[in-house]
């Protein structure tokens, strides 16, 4: 029964919280600002479930990272910024913190100054503010794999591939239906830039939060007759968009979702209206990848799996959590190779992230071939050139329908630098050099 499993989890979480205060010298600690209740709990349980499952796999299978055990504790945020900050303040004094992983744009924004002062990495996989990609200005923030601008470029490149090439975009019409929030609006300038570059007609239509009513927006779309609609949604806005598209006669296979519109939670409530819908992703879904299979066998086999509902293993958010786990653990491993197999400081782990290079061969060795492509983080590029792929919903599961696609990083970099340099000027931040990045605080 769900109620009793909640009680059991609460007891375990409490034990971890108290246990976490006594971290030993050979332990590396991950404070988790998770959200397991509230409006976004479905995403939170999947992501943090996958992350914890991977940490458990490393502990059970390998005895930790080179003998350093991985520990964690959770604080409930309900996806609310003030609660996220409160959890940060509560957990930040625990020793051996490797990195923060809030999976929330709002909480991440509120933490940037704090983690910079504390010299601990903040991981915003697939989200966060775009200009934090520039490690010269944001030394401790890592929007790994994908930032909003790369996502935009990836989506436009995918639409172009469907049309037969970037030159075929000329004269096409694309509507971006976006969530009425800073997150939703962040990509407006880059869509406009790409529209000018490739000659497609563009219009933006806003859906007020939370997005549970979209009749007017979809009737407007119907009147505009676009070739494609890009869905930049969040939460309930996504299934409502798909349902309303059906009501107004717009075909689902001409709707392309962004990275926060790509989960099972976004399509299942829409029922048949979601069939044919395509969305971008940095990590494929499914259980067939060796690392996921190992988690099932080793972690769930030992009764330590984090997901209550095992049918969610291999879902989009669960696999994102696993990939996030791989990236965190590998950053620790890389940092250990330089600083020693011991509990590292946050700044040492930052150095590890800034040298996080996993080519396809290393990804395969980690059991994640085709789960994600590769990453190549450097001291000044904190995104790491993540590749994207596209998946289509068939009514029951997602199926990959594209190759791995590279966003147009060269086009985006000057725009990112312009924004980050303006931020540095406004805040009086000294722009880092490679030498600055190599100077590490070890205690």
């Amino acid at each position, binding site marked *: 029964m769900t109620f009793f499993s909640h009680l059991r989890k609460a007891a375990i979480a409490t034990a971890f919280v108290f246990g976490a205060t006594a971290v030993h010298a050979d332990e590396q600690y991950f404070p988790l600002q998770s959200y397991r209740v509230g409006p976004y709990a479905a995403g939170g*349980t999947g992501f943090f479930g996958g992350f914890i499952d991977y940490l458990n796999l490393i502990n059970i299978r390998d005895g930790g990272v080179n003998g350093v055990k991985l520990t964690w504790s959770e604080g409930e945020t309900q996806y609310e910024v003030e609660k996220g900050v409160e959890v940060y303040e509560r957990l930040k004094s625990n020793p051996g913190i490797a990195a923060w992983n809030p999976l929330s744009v709002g909480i991440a924004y509120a933490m940037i100054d704090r983690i910079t002062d504390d010299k601990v990495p903040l991981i915003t996989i697939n989200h966060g503010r775009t200009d934090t990609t520039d490690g010269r200005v944001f030394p401790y923030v890592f929007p790994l794999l994908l930032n909003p601008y790369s996502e935009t470029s990836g989506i436009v490149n995918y639409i172009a591939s469907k049309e037969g090439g970037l030159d075929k975009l000329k004269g096409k019409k694309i509507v971006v239906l976006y969530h009425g929030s800073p997150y939703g609006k962040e990509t407006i300038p880059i869509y406009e830039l790409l529209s000018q570059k490739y000659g497609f007609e563009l219009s933006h239509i806003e859906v007020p939060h939370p997005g549970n009513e979209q*009749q007017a927006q979809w009737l407007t779309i119907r009147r505009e007759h676009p070739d494609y609609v890009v869905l930049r949604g969040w939460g309930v806005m996504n299934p409502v968009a798909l349902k309303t598209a*059906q*009501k*107004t006669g717009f075909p689902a296979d001409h709707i392309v979702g962004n990275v926060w519109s790509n989960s099972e939670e976004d399509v299942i409530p829409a029922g048949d209206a979601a069939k044919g819908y395509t969305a971008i992703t940095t990590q494929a879904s499914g259980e067939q990848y060796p690392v996921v299979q190992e988690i099932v066998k080793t972690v769930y086999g030992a009764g330590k799996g984090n997901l209550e509902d095992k049918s969610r293993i291999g879902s989009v958010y669960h696999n994102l959590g696993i990939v996030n786990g791989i990236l965190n653990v590998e950053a620790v491993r890389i940092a250990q190779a330089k600083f020693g197999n011991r509990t590292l400081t946050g700044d040492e782990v930052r150095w590890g992230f800034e040298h996080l290079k996993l080519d396809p061969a290393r990804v395969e060795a980690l059991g994640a071939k085709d789960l994600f492509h590769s990453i190549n983080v450097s001291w000044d590029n904190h995104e790491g050139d993540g590749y994207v792929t596209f998946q289509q919903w068939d009514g029951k599961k997602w199926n990959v329908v594209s190759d791995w696609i590279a966003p147009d990083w060269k086009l985006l970099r000057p725009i990112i630098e312009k924004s980050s340099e303006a931020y540095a000027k406004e805040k009086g931040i000294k722009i880092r050099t490679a030498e600055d990045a190599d100077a590490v605080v070890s205690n």
Partner: protein
Amino acid sequence: MSYYDFLFVIEVLVGGLLSGVMYSLVAIGFVLIYKTSGVLNFAQGSMVLFAALTFVSLVERRVPFALSLLITFAVMVALGFTIERTVLRPLVNRSPMTLFMATLGLSYIIEGAAQLIWGTQVHGLDLGIDDTPFEVGGVLISSFDLLAAAIAAAMVAGLSAFFYWTRIGLAFRAVADDQFAALAVGLRLPRIWGTVWTAAGFVALVAGLLWGARLGVQFSLSLIVLKALPVLVLGGFDSILGAIVGGLIIGASEKLAEVYLGPFVGGGIEGWFAYALALVVLLVRPSGLFGQKTVERV
């Protein structure tokens, strides 16, 4: 204006009216409780979530549809009487603000309990109603919304008949009119309030099923109260007819505003436009279009 533009206006208008009926469905639950106890039940949205989540969780556990409906209704009856016993009865004769705050707290408790009992996963809800649109004279109409409107109309007719032509309905009206006078003539207030909360639970169940089929059954379902509030302000807190007419006006005007005014102010205006409209009505008619005017001797 071309013929195509004219058709488009009609399409937006019809879509808005049908959406408005969905808002009315939620608003009616508020009206029922306010009418008989003077309490603005902020927990109505949570009750919608609780009902839909209970129903869909039962169906997913292979309980037959009709039985799930019955069990959920029984749960809502139990919830109604529990609320009356544990929250309302101890707060009898307290100020309306105290009662409102109590229902605000109740809303969080019900939301938390729903997730604690049934989990946090998002569910799809298929009522077997086809949602592909059909065309009437060039205007697309959603068959699902049309059926929802018919259900809402039937519910309003049923509730109106219940209020006007049954003894218990008469008792409800007596309590709504003057609680002390009703007590003096021997009406049992706790029983009446329990029954009213049960009726509100039934409305929440119907709204939960229809809204759940539209949005999916998830936490955000409780946020539909935000759509019902301007309807109540506009139509009047104590009028079922007001809830319907208010819903239609809000639904149609916010859609027309979004399509025709939105582009001039950056779009995304329907969220606040409904409240702006309600505010204007509040300034002109403080008790709403159909609400009972309160006259107090000073």
